[in-house]
C-alpha cells in the first residue's frame, strides 16, 4: 500500500527558518537520516522537498489557454513544504513514519510537532475474490 505523507509546515510570507547553525544542522541531518532509513527498509518510493512559498506561482488558463500567473496569496495559512511517498504493509506503519517526521527537531532541538497529512495513494482495484 502506498501512502503520501505531506508536510504542511510553511507559512506564506515566511522565508527560511532563522535558527542557529547547530539546530539547522540537526534538522537537516534528521531529514537525510529519515530518507536513508526508509530506503534501507525498502519502503521509500520518493521524497521531495519544495521551494519556499515566495517562489510559488498560481496559474490559471486565460483565453486560448494562455497561462495567467499570479503570486501566491498571503492569506493562505499553510504550504506544502515537502512530501514522502512510501510503500508499506499496513496503514499503521505509514502513521508511525508520519509521527517521526512530525517530531523533526526545530529551534533548540525541540520537536516541531508539525501536522503531517497521510493519505492513501489510489491503486489498482483489489482482487474480486479472496
Amino acid at each position: 500500500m502506498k501512502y503520501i505523507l505531506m508536510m504542511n509546515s510553511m507559512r506564506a510570507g515566511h522565508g527560511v527558518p532563522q535558527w542557529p547553525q547547530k539546530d539547522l544542522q540537526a534538522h537537516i541531518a534528521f531529514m537525510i537520516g529519515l530518507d536513508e532509513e526508509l530506503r534501507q527498509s525498502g519502503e521509500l518510493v520518493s521524497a521531495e522537498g519544495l521551494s519556499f512559498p515566495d517562489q510559488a506561482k498560481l496559474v490559471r488558463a486565460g483565453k486560448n489557454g494562455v497561462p495567467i500567473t499570479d503570486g501566491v496569496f498571503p492569506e493562505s495559512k499553510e504550504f506544502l513544504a515537502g512530501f514522502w511517498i512510501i510503500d508499506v504493509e499496513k496503514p499503521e506503519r505509514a502513521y508511525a513514519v508520519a509521527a517521526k517526521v512530525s517530531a523533526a527537531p526545530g529551534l533548540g532541538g525541540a520537536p516541531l510537532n508539525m501536522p503531517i497529512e497521510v493519505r492513501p495513494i489510489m491503486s489498482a482495484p483489489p482482487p474480486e475474490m479472496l
Partner: protein
Amino acid sequence: MTKAWDTTSEHLLRELAPQVLGAVARRFRDFVSAEDAVQEAMIAAFTQWPEEGIPDNPRGWLIQVASRRMTDQLRSEIARRQRETAVAGELETAAITVDIETDMDPNDTLILLFMCCHPALTPSSAIALTLRAVGGLTTAEIANAFLVPEATMAQRISRAKQNIKASGVQFQLPTREERAQRLRSVLHVLYLIFNEGYTSSSGTQLQRLELSREGIRLTRSMHVLLPDDPEIAGLLSLMLLTDARRAARTGANEELVPLDKQDRSLWNRGAISEGTDLLTSALSKGAVGPYQLQAAIAAVHDEATRPEDTDWPQILALYELLKRVSPNPMVTLNHAIAAAMVHGPSKGLELIRALDTDSRLSEHYRLHAVRGHLLEMTGDYESAIKHYRIAAGRTTSIPEQNYLMTQAARLAERTTQ
C-alpha cells in the same frame, strides 16, 4: 556451437534460474550470497546471450559464472579476515574439481519456493524474493512492476534474505508436520503475484501484465513438481479461469466492465478449457479446498455463453461450501450476491446485514458497493445511489471509483427522467 537468441530464450533463462540457484546454494551452503551471485549471472546472460548466442550448455554457463562470483567473494572475505592461506587454497581446488553442474536436484525449485514464501516474511518481501530467486526476474524488472525505485526493491529483497537467514531455515524441504502450513503460504504468495498483475492490467501499465503471467508460470511449475496436490491444481485452475476473461474486463477507456456486461467472445477459450480440465481432475481427488472452490465458481461463470445462462444455484451452493471451508467477510459478501441472484435481492440484503457489525468490513467500500447493487435490484434507486457514492468515496482504486461514480450517475439520470 551456440544457438541464436529468440523469443523463447528468455523463458529458458528464467526456467534455469531456480535450478542454478539450487545447485550453487547447496554447493556453497550460503543461500543469501548464492542468490546475489545467480542474479549477477542472470544479468550477465541477459546482456551477453542476445549478442553472442546461447551457449551449448546454458545451465553450466550460469553455474560457472555464479560460482566464480561466489569464489571471488569468499576469497576476498578470507583475505580480509586474514585466515590461514591453507583454507583459501583448499577452497580454490574444491571449486575447480567439484563439478557442480552434475549436481541437480529436481526438488530445488520447490525448496526455493518454500524458502522465499516463508511465513517469517511480510507478503511484499516474499513476493519480491520469489520473483527474483525462483522467477529469475531482475531487480529492475520487479521494481518496475511494483512502481518503486530499484534501490528500494533491492533493499527489500536483501532484507527478506536476512530475515530468512535469521530465522535459521535450512536449504531443504519442510518437514511433514510443517508442510501443510508452509504450502498455504506459498500458494498465497503465488496468488498475490497473479492478482497484482491481473487487477492492474490496464493499458497504461502494460508491463504489469507480466506479473499475472509470472504467477501462472510459477504455479504451473509447482503443479508439475507436485501434480497430486489438488489445491495447487485448484490455484492454477483459478488463475487460468480468471485470466481467461482479461481482455473483456476493461473497456476502450480502461474502464472496468463487470462480468454481466463483458463481451464473452473475447474470453480465452483455450485457457478456460485447460482450467476446467485441471479442476475436474483436482476435484476427483476428494480433498476440496478454498482454491478449488473458487476455481469452480469461476468455471461456472466461464461456461455460461450469456450472463442469463449463468447457473446461479450452482454458484450459491459453491459459496455455501466456501463459507464453511474458509469463512471470511468477503466470502459472505459474494455469497449474498449469489443468494440475491437465486432468491431475489431482499435475501441478499438480509444476508449482508450481518456484516454491518463486522469491524473488518463495516467500513469497507465493498459492502456499500454490494448494498448499492442489491438496492438497485429492488428498484430503490435513491438508496442505491447513496451507497454507490459512499463506496466511490472509500475505494482506493481509481478504476473502481470511476465505475461506482458512473453507476450512481446512471441511476440519478434514470430517476430524474
